[in-house]
């Protein structure tokens, strides 16, 4: 029999920490700090809008690009929150989560051999999606000393004549790093200097803390025409299970993305789209409430980590902290595995987000204070053992 599998797919390396995830799934009594989604349920008015749409029998396809009503709300939202105007008919469309939009943007823009700059540590899908689209990933290693911010100098060092796209994943999963306006201004200059396009994954845009406000690169002069802005409902409105994202981009690019979406997906789930309209119309107060709560827990987790001697820069976005565990002289995966077996706490090894995540672990604070206390108490015990402060 012939090999049923595509060579390209087989060559795609599986997530390096699959093994670790499998161990966790067999330990139901483990306390987790490893989730990648909000602990809140979707606010009731949004859920209710979804239910209401079902009662009204809105159970059919929508147009490929999504409900016009929703696209209009998204355009208003983008104007309101990041100060960029998009045409709600030709420059916005609704996807199945932000992740679909990432895949489509890469497929719509890449020819074989085109290079894509991917800063890491970052979310796991940019590299494989680039490969599937025929592109060549070029990894930029973000540095702890830069608080994991991308610098223009790093773009200059990595860009070649074949470089076409820069992926900009900020606020960042897993580091929690946020780019400031001055960082973005220099990055934008470098982008224009090398004639690149930007895929700006802004899924955590609503979750920034303190004085730090999210700035979209699309809002900088000359950048809207070079940017595919990707965002969604999952993190801001606690809607991960609804699978709702969107892309905003120049019509020329967006049209081709919608074309692929039309053949592969048809449209985003109709119920979710109606819920999404409600989220955009009435969700601001709920987002503020959840943001305030994350911020309190962020301070708590940072305090505890510093107190137990796990150095960690102060992340101003998303709901993750990324402590440095290199002083224990073991790999991230070893550290996470031992922590899991000895204290039954699940964290994600930094290497899940790229090789340069070695020496770090990702801790999520999308948990109740009670859960954080319990889990961090165990981490403290584990660290104290490693430090020889208590008997193993």
């Amino acid at each position, binding site marked *: 029999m012939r090999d049923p599998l595509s060579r390209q797919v087989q060559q795609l390396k599986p997530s390096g920490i699959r093994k670790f995830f499998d161990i966790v*799934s067999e330990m139901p009594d483990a306390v987790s700090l490893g989730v990648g989604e909000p602990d809140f349920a979707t606010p009731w008015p949004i859920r209710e809008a979804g239910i209401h749409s079902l009662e009204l029998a809105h159970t059919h396809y929508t147009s490929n690009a999504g409900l016009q009503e929703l696209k209009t709300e998204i355009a208003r939202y983008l104007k309101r929150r990041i100060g960029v105007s998009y045409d709600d008919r030709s420059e916005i469309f609704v996807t199945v989560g932000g992740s679909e939009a990432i895949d489509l943007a890469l497929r719509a823009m890449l020819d074989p051999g085109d290079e894509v700059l991917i800063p890491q540590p970052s979310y796991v899908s940019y590299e494989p999606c680039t490969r599937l689209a025929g592109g060549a990933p070029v990894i930029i290693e973000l540095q702890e000393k830069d608080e994991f911010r991308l610098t223009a100098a790093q773009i200059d060092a990595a860009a070649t004549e074949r470089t076409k796209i820069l992926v900009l994943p900020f606020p960042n999963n*897993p580091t929690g790093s946020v780019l400031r306006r001055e960082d973005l201004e220099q990055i934008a200059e470098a982008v224009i200097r090398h004639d690149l396009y930007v895929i700006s994954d802004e899924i955590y845009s609503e979750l920034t803390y303190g004085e730090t406000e999210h700035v979209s690169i699309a809002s900088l002069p000359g950048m809207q025409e070079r940017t595919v802005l990707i965002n969604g409902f999952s993190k801001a409105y606690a809607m991960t299970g609804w699978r709702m994202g969107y892309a905003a981009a120049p019509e020329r690019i967006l049209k081709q993305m919608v074309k692929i979406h039309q053949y592969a997906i048809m449209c985003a789930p109709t119920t979710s789209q109606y819920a999404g309209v409600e989220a955009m119309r009435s969700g601001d107060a709920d987002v503020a409430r959840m943001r305030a709560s994350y911020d*309190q827990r962020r*301070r*708590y987790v940072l305090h505890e980590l510093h107190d137990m001697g796990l150095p960690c820069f102060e992340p101003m976005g998303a709901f993750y902290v990324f402590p440095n565990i290199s002083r224990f002289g073991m790999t991230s995966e070893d550290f996470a595995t031992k922590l899991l077996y000895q204290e039954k706490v699940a964290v994600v090894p930094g290497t*899940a987000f790229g090789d340069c995540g070695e020496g770090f672990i990702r801790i999520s604070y999308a948990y109740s204070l009670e859960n954080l206390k319990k889990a961090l108490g165990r981490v403290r015990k584990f660290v104290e053992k490693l430090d020889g402060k208590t008997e193993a």
Partner: protein
Amino acid sequence: MAELSDKSKAQILEILEKDSRTSAADIGIMLGIGEEEAAAQIRAMEEEGVICGYHTLVNWEKISEEKVVALIEVRVTPQRDMGFDKLAERIYQYEEVQAVYLMSGAYDFTVIIEGRSMKSVAQFVSSKLATIDGVLSTATHFILKTYKDEGMVMLEKEKDERIQVMP
């Protein structure tokens, strides 16, 4: 400074309203103001009567002890010079009375009464409440089941259904 401390006061109250056992140390960390400042603000709010008490939300249905709660609509004639306040006082002095609210609309007070049985509550209403000078009428509604109280849903704790580790 005053504005800053007003903001942190509101945040402290929100935290305590959800869980009054959260320690001043934890609150200090979560709000980035330090334990001493958090404790001082809590103390000040207790003294000012902003924080009126710390209670436990009990689901009495879960234990065998019988307990009946009723909501009474009370119509009254306001008294000269004292309006409703004096009458309210005459009502809220009773141990059995859990809460008294002055209402807009068809009647004047909502009175929440707690008792051991429907009979004892009915007796209290007819012998104590209805006989107060100025009370015109009462209507008693017994609470049959509590679904949500003080912002808390009275159900089994929800399980965390999220996938434990995810990139």
